């Protein structure tokens, strides 16, 4: 197995609200290996984006704050770096693309200016070198006529093109890790297919590790090597992709897989997980899924299940698989 590139150790990111403290990321640990695509799946509010933002240290403070844990990137704890060191890392060794390609490009600058900026800033290239490299990058992300695109403005491009440009900017400094936060959610399916293809292609060409955040299990199945499932700020299951889809252990993961209608597999009635995501304020010491779970036991309401390995590389946080749970 490849070397670990990033390791989250007991990360805690909290947000202060008038109603109380929201533990958006609550004791989260997992790691991303070099050249691997790791997908973080979960529904809105489960903390998947906040985990990525914590890694980039782009949490707005206040109200947010990383209150505990470590994020080890190539042996260094990112949370101990100062602002300057972190900003040198950001966009250089760790790059990020977002869901909304419209709002992440500045409308008043040309595409060329926005791609060359990190090249000039991080790599200290000359204008001429930067332009050559930018055109190379635009070609790499599959856009025809790169010279023309170099001089155009964001509003002249479609959503799919803009997302390609975002990827080009992210790749400009050969990052070791690319964080993609719902990169295809705002796009149409046929365009989504193009972007996913492109990302797979880039991964194999450049051997970049990808941390992909998504709510779509279909995308996970297509892209991931390894999957982390989050619910209410906690990792509830993690496994290699084949293992997870073949043998989902946590009732929430099982429910998610059953709840999604799949093309050409028509059922009379969809399985649905009852209820809804719990109020994130002041969650107690229990399994946060217990009130929606059909296998709920007494212990689930009283104690948080630990995330433990139950099969090769497959971790689950559920009392069903613990001796304490079995005893009941």
């Amino acid at each position, binding site marked *: 197995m490849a070397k670990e590139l990033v390791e989250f150790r007991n990360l805690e990111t909290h947000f202060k609200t008038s109603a109380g403290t929201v533990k958006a990321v609550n004791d989260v640990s997992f790691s991303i290996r070099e050249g691997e695509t790791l997908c973080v799946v979960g529904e809105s509010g489960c903390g998947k984006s906040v985990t990525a933002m914590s890694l980039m240290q782009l949490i707005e403070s206040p109200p947010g704050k990383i209150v505990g844990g470590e994020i080890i990137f190539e042996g260094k704890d990112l949370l101990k770096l100062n602002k300057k060191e972190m900003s040198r890392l950001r966009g250089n060794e760790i790059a990020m693309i977002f869901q909304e390609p419209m709002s992440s490009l500045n409308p008043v600058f040309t595409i060329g200016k926005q791609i060359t900026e990190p090249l000039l800033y991080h790599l200290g290239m000359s204008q001429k070198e930067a332009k050559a490299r930018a055109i190379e990058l635009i070609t790499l992300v599959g856009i025809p006529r790169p010279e023309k695109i170099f001089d155009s403005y964001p509003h002249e491009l479609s959503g799919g093109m803009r997302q390609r440009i975002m990827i080009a900017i992210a790749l400009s400094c050969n990052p070791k890790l690319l964080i993609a936060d719902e990169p295809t959610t705002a796009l149409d399916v*046929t365009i989504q*297919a193009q972007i996913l293809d492109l990302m797979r292609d880039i991964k194999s060409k450049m051997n970049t590790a990808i941390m992909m955040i998504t709510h779509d299990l279909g995308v996970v199945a297509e892209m991931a090597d390894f999957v982390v499932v989050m619910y209410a700020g906690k990792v509830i299951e993690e496994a290699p992709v084949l293992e997870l889809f073949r043998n989902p252990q946590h009732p929430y993961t099982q429910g998610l897989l059953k709840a999604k209608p799949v093309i050409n597999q028509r059922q*009379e009635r969809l399985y649905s*997980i009852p209820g809804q995501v719990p109020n994130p304020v002041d969650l107690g010491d229990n399994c946060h899924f217990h009130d929606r779970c059909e296998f709920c036991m007494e212990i689930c309401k009283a104690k948080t299940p630990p995330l433990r390995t139950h099969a090769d590389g497959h971790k689950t946080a559920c009392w069903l698989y613990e001796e304490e749970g079995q005893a009941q």
Partner: protein
Amino acid sequence: MSESVVQLDKQQNGAGGEPLIQVDNLKKYFPITGGVFQRKVGDVKAVDGVSFTINKGESFGLVGESGCGKSTIGRTLLRLNDKTEGTVTFEGQDLHELSKSELRKMRTKMQIVFQDPFSSLNPRIKVGEAIGEALVDHGLVSRKDVKQRVIETMKICGLAEYHYDRFPHEFSGGQRQRIGIARALIMNPEFIVADEPVSALDVSIQAQIINLMSDLQREKQLTYLFISHDLSVVEHLCNRVGVMYLGTMMEMAPTEELFSNPLHPYTKALMSAIPVPDPTLKRERIVLQGDIPSPANPPSGCKFHTRCPMASDICKQQVPEYRNMGNDHFVACHFA
């Protein structure tokens, strides 16, 4: 209810039923204005000559990507926009010929459920009032019975009685969508347009709303026009499906027929583009090249030819005829 009975129900309600809505050559253009004097410089052809029929008790699905005009059809069908050309007939009456008061009466028979659970409810109106106000305004139920009716409807939609006095901001997306459904349902409409009702929701909540909608259809013999960009949702919920591209109907067939035997290259590409939650499946994917052209300036001939893997010269010059291939399967492609 056992599965076989459900199947039977569907067949009876399906293609064999009598038509409730007939759309004939419907066109809706939005003018583009430009220059100092706001002169018209062109048209966005959002809907460009679409015809179809929805039978009583059926649920008809419209799928397509952004800009294909599916939402505009839904709104023009209910006369929330004016049409540019063509006719929409509801129970034999041309909706766009009705006077304002006749239309108002007709409104009780057809309703809409919106996509965005946040902007579809007025933030300053309590849920109970929002659901019941149409009953009061149309004078369908006496004032003292309104609350009773509202609470009944709320319960049918999976809401509780004490939600009556709450404000929309106190609800999650899924619950708001239930409120929107209750609001549409309370007048006992025959026909409901559901405009992407689940696309803004999380997967686990999506399933709840889809189940609710199919339960309601069975219990109340509703007719749906279900608009979605998600083929898998449409396949689950609809008896018949139409696939649209740039304001034109490309293919239309009963659900099983369409999914087992797609004829149009666009339909095929659309189906193969959906990521399937099965990592062992390595499919031959058809990845379409390029972007969706602008509906303000659609390609000549077959509108799909710029992205079609099968396109030839005839596609650039001639608009393919929209024709019946048997089994109620319609398609607009030179090669089908």
